[in-house]
């Protein structure tokens, strides 16, 4: 009963907000450039549906490619950092410095570097954004080996590779997956924002900016809605992958 209530409550709140929004816009006759009504946005979603699907596929595809690339790079760097002090001292500050790079600053640079007719700049932006959280949480997981496990492997005269294979790597899976879950929605955001800075006009981000520039506010909002849905999808997929990879383990806090 309470579990069901917990599920229904946010949906109810969402509907309530939409109704209030609609009433406000109609009653106060808010101009469309300020805030279009939910019904107007819904009309645009329906009208633009095929465009939304194809542009979401492009933006989502870039996010996915960047997410996978960034995930692999982050995990490999974390493994290298965990296995060698030298690598740790070399990579950790660089990766953490990368977290301070605003993607806004990178996007135009990459577009100029690789030309505006390829998807590479956007994918690179996503990759940079994803590497950081994955590296940080994977590195933390790889460092956290329970003392009793470490002693056990010593008592078994395990080689360094056996320690890594039997204890360190499997033990780090939950942390690595947490990094993936955090990075997944961020990948979508990066993919969309990267489109604001020129290049191909085939994704959700470029549609939002061009619709807004053409004063088609309801249409811009329709693409915003699609972006939200895409972000949620990535979030859910990340959560699902995390659950699957950590099945049968005690919950971590």
């Amino acid at each position: 009963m309470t579990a069901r209530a917990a599920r229904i409550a946010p949906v109810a709140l969402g509907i309530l907000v939409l109704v209030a929004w609609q009433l406000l816009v109609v009653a106060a006759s808010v101009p469309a450039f300020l805030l279009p009504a939910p019904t107007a946005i819904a009309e645009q979603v329906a009208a633009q549906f095929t465009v939304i699907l194809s542009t979401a596929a492009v933006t989502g595809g870039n996010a996915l490619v960047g997410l996978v690339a960034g995930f692999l790079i982050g995990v490999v760097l974390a493994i290298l950092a965990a296995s060698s002090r030298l690598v740790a001292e070399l990579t950790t500050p660089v990766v953490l410095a990368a977290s301070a790079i605003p993607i806004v600053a990178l996007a135009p640079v990459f577009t100029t570097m690789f030309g505006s007719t390829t998807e590479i700049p956007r994918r690179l932006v996503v990759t940079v954004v994803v590497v950081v959280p994955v590296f940080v949480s994977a590195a933390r997981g790889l460092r956290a080996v329970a003392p009793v496990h470490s002693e056990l492997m010593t008592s078994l005269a395990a080689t360094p590779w056996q320690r890594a294979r039997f204890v360190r790597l499997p033990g780090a899976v939950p942390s690595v997956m947490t990094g993936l879950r955090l990075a997944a929605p961020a990948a979508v955001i990066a993919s969309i924002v990267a489109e604001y800075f020129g290049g191909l006009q085939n994704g959700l981000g470029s549609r939002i900016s061009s619709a807004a520039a053409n004063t088609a506010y309801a249409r811009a909002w329709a693409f915003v809605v699609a972006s939200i849905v895409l972000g949620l999808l990535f979030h859910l997929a990340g959560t699902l992958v995390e659950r699957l990879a950590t099945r049968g383990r005690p919950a971590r806090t």
Partner: protein
Amino acid sequence: MNEHRSEPSTVSEPVGASEQPAAVELAEVDKRFGDVVALSGIDLTLDDGEFVALIGPSGCGKSTLLRVVADLEAPSAGVVHVGGKTARQARLDQDYGIAFQQAGLLEWRTVAENVELPLQVHGVGKTQRRARAAELLELVGLADFAGSRPGQLSGGMQQRVAIARALAARPKLLLMDEPFGALDEMTRERMQAELLRIAGETGAAVLFVTHSIPEAVVLSDRVAVMTPRPGRIVEVVAGRRPGRGGELEPEDVEDVRETASFFAAVTAVREALRKGHP
């Protein structure tokens, strides 16, 4: 918790009659951590198949002594031999099995895979590993839980898995560091009976760290009483281990706890402990 007791099926072989080197031999062992003397002048020998308990208050160095035997700590002075080899060689050859106070199971592996771990580290093939794990889980009464994850098991069951793991490579020596310390009294007594049965069936010598006097007396052939600062063995008291070298019925362990000689031994250990603690 599903307790199914397998009867002691195999008759354990007679022990102590062979010409084999002692299971453990410690001579003049000292261990210092900086200025702190953790162990001083430890002399102790475990015969083949013998069960020796190390008892003493916290900080008396009993765990350190066990860790020296396991080659998890190097002694500062003295000689440590395990089965006639150096402690290091014995560890590299996987001559002993060890169980800690925490079960320390790998939670991402199934119960059977946890038991297989020592064999896997030593490159034993998969089929053999599977068979051995099944055999050991039968021995500790957890055959039905081979495919379970450690998180689904109670503390006592996890500890039995840890003991099965310690036995995987058929060691001649079991090192146990308060393995039942975190268990409730009922589970603990049942585990003691199981451990004695397993020790009898496998013929392994056991070095067992505890701070429970009744536990030390009921399990061991000899109880080495230790005192702190510096950690020394002040006295070795005869334990009341039932059924050594013969068949052990589950009731035997219960019966021992009610005999006068059991209480006498408990008193003797208590007095030895008090001597070191005025």
